[in-house]
C-alpha cells in the first residue's frame, strides 16, 4: 500500500496562490460579464479551486492532463500562464490557439496539455490513448483526466474504463461532482448523485472525497499517481464540490436555491485553505498578501490582454496550413 503524500505548508501556500489567481480571474470575468462585456465561452470555476489546483499539483510537467471547460485552475496549475488563457478567451493574438479554439481549446503540449475534445465523452478514450503511449514507450508518465456530469453520463466512459483496466494503464479519472449539470441536479442524472458508482465493478481504487479540501485532494491524487507510476494501473477519484456561479455567461441560475449556495459558500475551499495555512503557521499578513498579489496579477493581465490585437484570420490561417 502506497502511503499518502501530505502537503507541506509550502505546498499548500503555493497551491493557494494558484487557487486565488483562479478565483480572482473568475471574479473579474464575472464582473465584465455583468457589465455587458462579452466573455465568450466563459464557465466559472468559483468554488472548485481546491479540486482543480490540488489535483494537478502532484503532476510532473511531462504528465498529461485533460481538463474540463469549467474554471481555469487546472490550466494555471499545469503551468499555463494567465496571460495565455486570457488571450485565448478574448480571441486575441498571442494565445495558444490564435482565435481558432478560444478558451475551450487552450493547449500547451510541452506542458502536458494536448488540448480538449469538442463533444463531451471523447476524453475518456483519448486519456487512455495518452496513457497507452506512455506504457508502450516504457515512460513512467501518467495521465489525469478530469470530467463532469455530462461526459461521465456518456457510454464512452464504459468503453475506456474497460480498456484501461484490461491494459492496466497509468491513468487517473477525476470526476468533478459539483452538484449540477447545467440546470440538472447530479441526483437527477446519477443514482444517489454519485458519479463514480459505475466504476466499482472493476475492483480498481475508487474514492469519493471532499473536493473542497485541498489537502485531501492532493493526498488522494498523489496516491493514485504513485500507483499509476508504479505500474499498478488506473484509479478513479470522485471529488464532491459545488458550482457557486451559474453554468455559463448567459445563465441566470435561478434554479439554484439561494440557501444551498449560501451553505456551500460557508465551505468555500479558498477560505478553508487560508484557515489551514494559519494553523500551519503562516501569518495573516502573508495570506492577505497572496490575495493582493492575485488581484494585481489579474488586473494587469486583463488590461494587457484588452489592449492586445485581435487574432486575425491571417494568424489563424497560418496555423491551419498543415
Amino acid at each position, binding site marked *: 500500500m502506497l502511503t499518502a503524500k501530505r502537503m507541506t505548508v509550502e505546498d499548500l501556500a503555493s497551491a493557494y496562490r494558484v487557487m486565488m489567481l483562479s478565483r480572482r480571474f473568475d471574479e473579474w470575468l464575472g464582473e465584465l460579464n455583468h457589465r455587458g462585456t462579452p466573455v465568450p465561452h466563459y464557465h466559472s470555476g468559483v468554488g472548485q479551486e481546491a479540486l482543480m489546483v490540488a489535483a494537478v499539483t502532484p503532476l510532473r510537467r511531462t504528465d498529461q492532463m485533460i481538463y474540463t471547460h469549467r474554471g481555469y485552475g487546472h490550466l494555471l496549475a499545469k503551468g499555463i500562464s494567465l496571460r495565455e488563457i486570457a488571450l485565448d478567451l478574448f480571441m486575441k493574438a498571442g494565445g495558444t490557439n490564435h482565435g481558432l*479554439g478560444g478558451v475551450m481549446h487552450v493547449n500547451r503540449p510541452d506542458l502536458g496539455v494536448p488540448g480538449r*475534445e*469538442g463533444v463531451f465523452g471523447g476524453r475518456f*478514450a483519448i486519456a487512455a*490513448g495518452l496513457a497507452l503511449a506512455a506504457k508502450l514507450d516504457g515512460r513512467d508518465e501518467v495521465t489525469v483526466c478530469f470530467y463532469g456530469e455530462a461526459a461521465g453520463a456518456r457510454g*464512452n466512459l464504459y468503453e475506456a474504463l474497460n480498456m484501461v483496466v484490461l491494459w492496466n494503464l497509468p491513468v487517473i479519472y477525476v470526476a468533478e461532482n459539483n452538484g449540477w449539470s447545467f440546470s440538472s441536479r447530479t441526483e437527477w442524472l446519477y443514482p444517489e448523485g454519485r458519479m463514480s458508482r459505475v466504476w466499482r465493478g472493476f475492483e480498481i481504487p475508487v474514492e469519493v472525497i471532499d473536493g473542497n479540501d485541498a489537502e485531501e485532494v492532493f493526498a488522494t491524487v498523489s496516491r493514485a499517481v504513485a500507483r499509476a507510476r508504479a505500474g499498478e494501473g488506473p484509479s478513479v477519484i470522485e471529488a464532491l464540490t459545488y458550482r457557486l456561479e451559474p453554468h455559463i455567461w448567459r445563465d441566470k441560475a435561478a434554479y439554484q436555491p439561494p440557501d444551498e449556495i449560501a451553505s456551500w459558500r460557508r465551505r468555500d475551499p479558498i477560505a478553508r485553505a487560508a484557515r489551514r495555512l494559519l494553523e500551519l503557521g503562516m501569518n495573516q499578513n502573508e495570506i492577505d498578501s497572496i490575495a493582493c498579489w492575485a488581484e494585481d496579477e489579474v488586473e494587469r493581465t486583463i488590461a494587457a490582454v484588452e489592449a492586445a490585437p485581435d487574432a486575425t484570420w491571417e494568424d*489563424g490561417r497560418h496555423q491551419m496550413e498543415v
Partner: protein
Amino acid sequence: MTSTRLTGREALNRVLASELAVNRRAVVMGETVRLAGSSGVLHGLYDRFGPSQVIETPVSENGIFGAALGLALAGFRPIVEIYSADFLLVVANEIIGDMCKWRQQQARPGPMPIVIRGCMGPNAKGGLGPEHSQSMEPYFHHAPGLVIVTPGTPRDMAGLLRASLRSPDPVLFFEHRRVYDLADEIPDDESFIIELGRAEVVREGKDVTLVAWGWMRSEAEIASSVLDAEGISVELIDPRTIAPMDHEAIRRSVARTAQLVVAEEAPRTGGVGAEVLARAVESAARPIRVARVSMPDAIHPYSASMERLFIPNANTIADAVRRLVSSARSAPPVLAR
C-alpha cells in the same frame, strides 16, 4: 525492378508488415486483429510483431478511436482497423469532431498521423445486408481535413497504403471487398508509393470521360471495352482518392470530351458523384453534358438477387454512356457558368 503477383489482401499485409518493422511506434489496433482482422489482411502480424504493435481491442469503437487519437497526440502512428467500414458511423464524432478538427482548434499544425482502414462494399456473392455493404465515402467527404482513399486494384492498395502511412493527415482507407480478391504484379521495392490526390487515366479516349473508383473501376473498364467495340471511345479516370479529389485531371479530360459520366456504388443523393459533376460544370470553359450511375436512394437488401438489381455494373454504366452520347444529338447541353 522485381515484382510479385499478390492479391489485394496480400499486398496490404506486406505494406503493413514493412511499416511495423521500420517504425516501432506504428501500431495496428482493432477488433480480432490478433488472428487476422475482419478480412484476413493482418494474417501473421501478431506473431511477428507481438502485442505492443498489434493491439487486440474489445468491440469498443469509441474507445478504440479515442485511444488512437491519444496515441497520435503522443507521437505514435496508429493504424486502426474498423471491422466493417459501415461501423465508422459509430465513431463519426471521433473522426470528424476530434481527429479532423484537433490541429486547427488547438492551432498545432503538426502531424495527425492516423490511418483508419477497413473493408467496404458488397462481396462477390452479395447479400451482406445494409450494415456490411454501404459505400462510406460520401458520408465522410464532406468533412474538412480528412484524406479518403478508395483503391480499385491491388497495386493501388499497396502504393496508396504506403502513401497513407506517410501522410501527416488522418486517412480513411477503404478496402473494397471485391478488390481484395483481385491479383496484380506489385513492385517488391519497399519505396513503391502512389501519391495521394493523383488520378490515374486508366484508359485514354476521346468521346466521353468516365470517372469510377473502388470496385466501380473494374465494372467501368469492362463497360469501356464494350463501348469501344461499338465505336464509343471512353476515357476512363480512376481518381483513387476521394479527398483530395483530382478535379484537375477530370477537368482536363472533359475539356476534350465535353461529356462526363460518373459511376458510383453509393446512393445518388449527396454523393461524391454530385460533387464531381458540379466541379466539372463549374470549371468547364464550354457547355458539357453530364450523367451519373449510382445505387438508388435505398438500403442494400439482404437478398443478394435483389441487391444485384441495385448496384451499378458494366451494363448499367455502358447504358448510361450510350444514353448520354445519343441524347447529345437531340438535346441542348448543360450550360456552364
